[in-house]
């Protein structure tokens, strides 16, 4: 079929491979995170939610960056495959962004004593979530595939540029989130390893989700095309 990036059999093999790795890597990561990594001294065991929270945040940003690139890709080449990459990444990103927004308050209540605060990173993540939900909503209400791809690519580009400014604005406005850990050196090496494990496991899982979502979108497009031809 024209416009398809992966052949059926390759998609099948790649999915199986990713599934295999995810089935091994995720339980291994959770085993390491819950049983091997040391318990944090002041926060106690609740700190372990951080191993889901931080990698999910990374993955959400990664996915939204892919949406940004795919939006450019579509506007420059007009290949619908880019649009499918965009919507798949946006959906997977929204799922991980929700995970960040749900795990955050669960951690914050016992540690900060409050569920939510209008800190820069929290606010930005929430706005990010709203922007990509709006992106997905927009797609639901445009029927023609070319127009849908064009309009959502425009929003995909604007949304990403905007997030950078949202972060700057909310950073000046408030600041409470625990300091960045990357390069800080304050983290036990075993904790770091836990983050790396969890990130790897979730990354493979995200890739699997992305691949299935992409495939679903291609099949949908093919079906629409076939239905159109059958009518003519």
């Amino acid at each position: 079929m024209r416009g398809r990036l992966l052949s059926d059999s390759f998609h099948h093999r790649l999915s199986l491979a990713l599934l295999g790795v995810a089935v091994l890597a995720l339980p291994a990561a959770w085993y390491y995170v819950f049983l091997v990594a040391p318990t944090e001294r002041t926060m106690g065991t609740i700190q372990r939610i951080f191993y889901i929270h931080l990698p999910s945040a990374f993955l959400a940003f990664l996915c939204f960056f892919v949406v940004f690139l795919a939006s450019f890709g579509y506007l420059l080449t007009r290949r619908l495959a880019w649009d499918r990459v965009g919507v798949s990444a946006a959906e997977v990103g929204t799922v991980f962004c929700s995970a960040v927004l749900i795990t955050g308050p669960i951690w914050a209540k016992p540690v900060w004593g409050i569920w939510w605060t209008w800190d820069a990173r929290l606010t930005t993540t929430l706005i990010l979530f709203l922007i990509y939900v709006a992106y997905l909503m927009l797609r639901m209400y445009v029927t023609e595939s070319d127009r849908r791809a064009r309009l959502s690519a425009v929003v995909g580009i604007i949304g990403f540029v905007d997030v950078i400014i949202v972060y700057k604005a909310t950073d000046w406005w408030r600041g409470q989130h625990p300091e960045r850990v990357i390069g800080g050196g304050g983290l036990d090496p075993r904790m770091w390893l836990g983050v790396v494990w969890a990130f790897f496991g979730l990354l493979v899982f995200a890739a699997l989700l992305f691949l299935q979502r992409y495939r679903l979108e291609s099949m949908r497009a093919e079906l629409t095309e076939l239905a159109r031809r059958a009518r003519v």
Partner: protein
Amino acid sequence: MDTWRVCLAVFRKDLIAEWRTKEVITTIFLFGFPVSVAFSFAFESPLAGGEARTFAGGLLWLAFFFAAILGLTRSFARETANQCLQGLRLIPADRGGIYLGKLLSNLLFMMVAELVLVPIFGVFFDVTLWARPGWFLLILVLGTWGVATLGTLLSAVSANTRMQELMLPLLLLPLTVPVLIAAIECTAVLLNNRPMAEARHWLQLLTGFDIIFTLLCWLLFDYVIQE
């Protein structure tokens, strides 16, 4: 050169259309007015401590934002009737000019409605917004411009969808959060009689936002209205 001619032509067309129908300015005003009144029930309640004055800057901008969204929806929704948008597409020149013309007219309509709302707001909430008129006008222009840049582009986006009126606020509100925060902070500095130097980085942020998004939207507009 072409871009400017298109821009001015679209601006003139919008002014004439607005002069005849008066729909955008009246919509913004007639929505902003009752919203300001409604805010007083929430914030002037004796149980809430009657401290609406402290929030006045925020309330003012929220009223502007909500009202502006209604006005902006009209901006391209009115072009869908009688295939006006098709006519605009046929302009044999840079389509970015259409965006700039629309941006100018939206900016003007919003400013006019806001300038009428400001004194009313001042009376209701007992605040003097015009103690430093130059600064106030600057904040008003920068904030309104920020909403208008994205608002004009997204108005065109939502006019292309099946649920026109609903799509614009969904897209516009999260994207204009930096404008909302910065404009509210600037107004708070102004209202609390603090030196304007405290609002300097907010004014810079607003200016930066306005410039970045005016350019970006101008570049992307062509993709939005293509057939």
